[in-house]
């Protein structure tokens, strides 16, 4: 955009290049083991569990596809096209399950549905059954796993599909109606096909989360790639085999990335040009209204209402015992990690996005993409990719220092908070880069030019013009990363320093010890913070939809 002296371009480019390369280290590390050839551990994996990992992952993906599509599309259609009592509430309440990490909903349902839980106790009391008089489905199974995942992942499909339905111009649907199609046939033949790219984008995001899930499948005893990586690493201590498993998992992920990118591009073609008044909502009859109400109520209750109520009840029940100084230490640890990392992520994102705006070269664009590819990569994989090079570096430094000075440096990088913060950054930088990039894109280039012409250097322009204008976006970017880090489980579990616990890790440990009620206080903290970005998200959606019409 603005020409620079060569050195200035080089300084930004060099900085961005170095960050991108650093952030690519985990993925490169993991892939580098593909060429290591197979060792005994790998052969053992292939002979015994690999087929299970693949088939379980496929079954989970199939189940989640079914679950998220059926819930997501139905609710999106009802809340965007139809009118029924409670629609305005469900519009945003249907997003709330996003606040609940899958592993937390899994513990909660296990507690609710197990033998001594409220559901079975209630059934026994009502029907006067004895302990062995009835069959009850086992939630801790692969079917339970995809149901749990679907309940908290359907909002991805709901969100994107609903946006697509709302963007469809009323004229298209009216054209279909005028050609003799009823509202329902218009939905199946016009609205749904037009929303297809958005649906596929939402689905591929949900499937990426499914592949990345560790807590749910571990707790339900469903062997998949993530649990396999974890076990190979912790149980067998085999970095090579763990990395090879991770590369295989990444292949699945890359297929999803390609699908997601492709359908996003398709979605652009499917969008209507210009804003047109939205079609009048379909007025449902009283009976139809009730059906719609219940269709939206069920996913809300199952995905958020009931588990939240259960967590709350457990928290109150166990508060006296659980809310103590240890608990406050957990909160402090989690907050510290999340705040520091989300601030760092924001600084990096500002540097990269603004550098991209200033230099605007293809190389820089590529580097920014590389640095933000972590969003699709499961935390387990990133953890492996971080710990291997860090451990190697530590050992090399240690060996050298022992040889030279007869002094052991110990572990400087691995096994410290540094490794953990770095892996969080790799995983979540995309979130802040995305927010900052889109917000910067809305600031007209003439703003930069105006400030520069009045004697301000590029960094001063960023501080005095862009950052104040983007203030609310920057806060949102911090918050989104903050919540993601609070929820993150597998990388934290693998990389945390000895005896360093966070809310997520503690909830996982207590649940693994079958102390489900005791896990609730940590879990509910995570869910409560998770609600904040959901509210922000629904606010920004309404603002985008209605606000801009009024302001411009």
């Amino acid at each position: 955009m603005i020409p620079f002296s060569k050195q200035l371009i080089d300084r930004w480019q060099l900085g961005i290049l170095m960050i991108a390369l650093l952030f690519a280290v985990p993925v490169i590390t993991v892939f580098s083991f593909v060429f290591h050839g197979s060792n005994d551990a790998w052969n053992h994996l292939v002979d015994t569990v690999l087929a299970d990992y693949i088939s379980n992952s496929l079954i989970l993906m199939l189940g989640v596809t079914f679950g998220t599509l059926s819930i997501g599309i139905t609710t999106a259609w009802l809340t965007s096209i139809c009118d029924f009592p409670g629609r305005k509430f469900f519009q945003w309440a249907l997003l709330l399950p996003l606040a609940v990490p899958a592993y937390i909903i899994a513990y909660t349902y296990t507690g609710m549905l197990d033998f001594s839980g409220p559901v079975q106790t209630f059934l026994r009391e009502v029907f006067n059954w004895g302990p062995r008089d009835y069959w009850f489905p086992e939630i801790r199974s692969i079917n339970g796993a995809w149901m749990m995942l679907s309940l908290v992942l359907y909002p991805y499909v709901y969100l994107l599909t609903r946006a697509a339905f709302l963007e469809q111009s009323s004229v298209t649907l009216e054209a279909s109606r005028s050609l003799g199609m009823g509202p329902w046939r218009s939905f199946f033949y016009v609205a749904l096909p037009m929303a297809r790219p958005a649906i596929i984008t939402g689905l591929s995001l949900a499937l990426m989360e499914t592949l990345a899930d560790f807590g749910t499948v571990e707790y339900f005893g469903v062997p998949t790639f993530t649990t396999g990586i974890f076990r190979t690493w912790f149980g067998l201590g085999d970095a090579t085999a763990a990395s090879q498993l991770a590369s295989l998992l990444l292949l699945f992920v890359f297929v999803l990335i390609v699908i997601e990118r492709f359908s996003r591009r398709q979605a652009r073609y499917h969008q209507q040009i210009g804003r047109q008044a939205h079609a009048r909502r379909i007025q449902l009859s009283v009976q139809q209204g009730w059906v719609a109400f219940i269709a939206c109520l069920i996913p809300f209750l199952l995905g958020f209402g009931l588990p939240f109520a259960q967590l709350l009840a457990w928290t109150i029940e166990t508060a006296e015992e659980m809310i103590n100084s240890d608990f406050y230490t957990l909160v402090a640890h989690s907050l510290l990690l999340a705040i520091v990392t989300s601030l760092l992520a924001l600084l990096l994102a500002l540097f990269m996005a603004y550098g991209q705006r200033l230099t605007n070269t293809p190389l820089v664009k590529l580097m920014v993409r590389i640095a933000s590819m972590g969003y699709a990569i499961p935390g387990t994989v990133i953890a492996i990719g971080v710990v291997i090079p860090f451990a190697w570096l530590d050992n090399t430094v240690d060996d050298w220092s022992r040889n030279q000075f007869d002094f052991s440096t110990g572990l400087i990088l691995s096994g410290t908070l540094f490794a953990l913060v770095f892996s969080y950054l790799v995983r979540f930088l995309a979130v802040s880069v995305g927010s900052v990039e889109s917000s910067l894109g809305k600031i007209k280039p003439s703003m930069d030019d105006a400030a520069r012409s009045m004697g301000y250097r590029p960094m001063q322009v960023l501080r005095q013009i862009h950052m104040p204008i983007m203030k609310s976006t920057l806060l949102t970017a911090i918050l989104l990363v903050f919540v993601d880090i609070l929820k993150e489980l597998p990388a934290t579990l693998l990389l945390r320093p000895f005896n360093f616990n966070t809310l997520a890790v503690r909830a996982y440990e207590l649940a693994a010890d079958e102390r489900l009620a005791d896990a609730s206080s940590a879990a509910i903290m995570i869910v409560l913070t998770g609600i904040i970005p959901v509210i922000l998200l629904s606010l920004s959606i309404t603002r985008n939809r209605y606000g801009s019409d009024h302001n411009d």
Partner: protein
Amino acid sequence: MGLTTMTNPILNLQAISLSYGSNKVIQNIDLQIQEGEIGCLLGSSGCGKTTLLRSIAGFEKPDQGQITIRNSVVNDKTTYTPPEQRNIGMVFQDFALFPHLSVKKNIAFGLNSGKGKLNKSAQNQRVTELLEMIDLADIGNKFPHQLSGGQQQRVALARALAPKPDLLLLDEPFSSLDIELREQLATQVAKIIKHEGITAILVTHDQNEAFAMADKVGLLQAGKLIQWDTPYNLYHQPNTQYAANFIGQGTMIPGLVHDSNTIISDLGTIHGKVPEGCKPKCAVDILVRPDDIIHDDDSLNQLEIIDKVFRGAEFLYTLKLNEQRNIFCIAPSHHDHPLHSLLGITLDMTHIVVFKRPKATNP
């Protein structure tokens, strides 16, 4: 004028060229602007005028040539001064007011940095002075989105003028305003700039704007500066057929040179200076402006009216000269003649503009 041309110009462009790949946006442009002058770059869209302005500002970097602002070289083979060090002010097409700052803070923005830096009380004084000058003394605490387009435009001007830049650059400053507002603002803005004694360059595609504001107008075509002259000369003495066609209305009438002072044309015998190197029998084109044709009911020279446009104070008649050519005539609007009737005209060509016709083309 003789004295000013002796002094060093505020802005001096020498052989500026800039290409994007194979697209030559600016080709070998030379241009000087003297202290206190308002210059204008005029041309159709894509002619390179905005790129030239942005090169002067430092937002674009020419491939060749030298730019000097008040005796210091800001751009040549080895030098590139970034925009923030050029001591310029700029008014943007979309005004580019900072949405998060009040009007006062927008205007004071350039007084906090660089060469224009002032202390707080001097800043306040300057801001108040400018707000009064743009007739918006009472809106200092409002925010840009609360202002009308015309108000935003004036605030953008005040903001650019605040640090008393060596050079004020205006990039299509009126194009996002209503047409009625444009003319009124153009003269007001020119007055303010003159009052501040600041040298300015304006980029526009609207010749009325150029004529209303500028001391000198540069006409650009396909990256080349065709003519750099006063508005009067550009209109009455265009140096090329392109300039003649671009500026104002007019028709080219073919003619034959009779002698060094006489041309025989479809409009009759015309006296005036013929182009260099035109011998008798040489084919030429004569530029006929609507104001060269005077309506005269008594004239024997009568032409058919084939179109007329009512413009309030006057009629613009299109008259049929012969099968190939029409000419324009402006008549006071009480001279209302019906379509297809005959209109009497006489010629009043005090300064004729004649171009030698290239050999290959037919009349």
